[in-house]
């Protein structure tokens, strides 16, 4: 049953060194504040899962927190590469990381299987694809009716998933709307789930019955963090800070500049700083 907690406590209670963790968001609703809190608390040896690792995983990898990354697209969306992640893969800096790479279809199916309590997902995929030859977690099953050979991947079952959402009600139910991505599956597939929200409202009585609502008993902890997905966006609250994504490319290109930026904007900053970062993006939402 969801507990309302300050973010620092929600992260401290639910993330551990060595955990398999997902900070999910598909361009929209990226849980930046939760990731920054995890960075401040300096967790180690994490296996980080995400379809689209972007700035926050670049930051966590650059800070030496990741042992392994499971992913399907490692880019700065709309801009280019993830330079800290590249540095770790190409040069072992700050230390080598293991990777398990999939396609989006495979990761989406694997989360879906995790949410559905299955050990694996099957789908028509990876035909002729190079990943099938370098990733031993891409296997096959044969349809017992048609004989068709389908790809199989293991279900994703994070120890903990972090997502950002529009709002919770007082009971602790959570609403995700707009580009809903893989958030519901990431929460339901995980042993524990931490959600940051823009606000808490009395009830959800005025919501349409078919929206993506996570009942309170599927969520472990909720932290209220206005602006908590910046520089990503929260539909209905504030727009994407595209300029910050462009700016990140230069910051992450240089090891020293990266450390300086992290020191100033993450280590010496706090959860309360997010509201200010989106102040001028609210009109555009």
């Amino acid at each position, binding site marked *: 049953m969801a507990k309302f907690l300050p973010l620092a406590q929600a992260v401290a209670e639910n993330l551990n060194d060595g955990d398999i963790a997902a900070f999910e968001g598909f361009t929209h609703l990226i849980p930046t504040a939760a990731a920054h809190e995890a960075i401040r608390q300096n967790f180690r040896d994490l296996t980080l899962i995400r379809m689209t690792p972007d700035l926050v995983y670049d930051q966590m990898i650059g800070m030496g927190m990741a042992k392994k990354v499971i992913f399907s697209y490692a*880019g700065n969306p709309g801009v280019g590469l993830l330079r800290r992640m590249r540095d770790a893969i*190409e040069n072992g800096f700050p230390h080598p990381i293991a990777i398990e790479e999939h396609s989006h279809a495979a990761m989406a199916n694997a*989360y879906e299987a995790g949410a559905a309590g299955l050990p694996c997902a099957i789908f*028509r995929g990876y035909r002729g694809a190079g990943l099938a030859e370098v990733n031993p977690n891409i296997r096959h099953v044969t349809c017992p009716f048609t004989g068709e050979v389908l790809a199989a991947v293991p279900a994703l079952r994070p120890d903990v998933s972090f997502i950002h959402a529009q709002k919770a009600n007082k009971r602790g139910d959570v609403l995700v709307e707009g580009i809903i991505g893989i958030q519901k*599956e990431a929460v339901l597939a995980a042993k524990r789930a931490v959600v940051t929200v823009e606000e808490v409202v009395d009830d959800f009585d005025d919501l349409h019955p078919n929206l993506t609502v996570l009942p309170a008993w599927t969520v472990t902890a909720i932290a209220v963090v206005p602006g908590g997905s910046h520089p990503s*966006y929260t539909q209905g609250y504030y727009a994407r800070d595209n300029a910050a994504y462009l700016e990140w490319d230069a910051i992450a290109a240089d090891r020293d500049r990266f450390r300086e930026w992290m020191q100033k904007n993450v280590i010496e900053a706090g959860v309360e700083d997010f509201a200010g970062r989106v102040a*001028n993006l609210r009109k555009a939402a």
Partner: protein
Amino acid sequence: MSAFTPNEMMTIAASRALKNDDVCFVGIGAPSAACNVARLTHAPDITLIYESGTIGTAPDVLPLSIGDGELCETATTTVSVPEMFRYWLQGGRISIGFLGAAQIDKFGNINTTVIGDYHHPKTRLPGGGGAPEIATSSQQVYITMAQSRRGMVETIAFYTSFGHGEGGDHRQRLGIDTQGPTLLITDLAIWKPDPVTKEFTVVSLHPGVTREQVQDTCGWPVKFADDVAVTPPPTELELRTLRDLKARTDAAHKGQATTA
């Protein structure tokens, strides 16, 4: 008619290949521009789908990412990412998968994963994202990219997504029953696969482009069709539509970064 850049010609030529009743799975970058120019000119009812889950979207500006808010706001419906890949892509509902490429070979195989060895890469690229299954589940695949010897190579380092493999009936031999890459549009030319060998062959040169320019910017010996056409230059409407779109896009994506 105004002067136009090779990139503009590329985008407009690509837009012309799309039909009003196409259901198009749109990659970001050049494919996104081409698809939206098509929608704003001759194909107003084209269905544009982005892998973030937005179906039938009609953005006023080009998205910077595949998940910009406007894609959702203007869509017929927005579904979850698992549903997108299961019901819509794997379900066989996509007529055109439209991809960009970092590296391509003459059979339309694409590499956006690594330069060098996969396990010890010289350059680690972002990876495939949706491409491996877009390439096999879409009824056809269109590819668009600017030509360069680094981009158009004899042998790609990694098969991120499968085109025609080693050519001929390689797709069918792998149990892939879709057509694969049927069109390559570059900044210099329009290419189609040979019906038998499946090697990309130049069928049309953009206005003013020579065969030598095409060969000089391509890493394999280029085949030309018996009849090579000249791509009709952009019309005023096409060019104005593209430029207006780009101008709106630039204006929208500018703005102050407030730390990331």
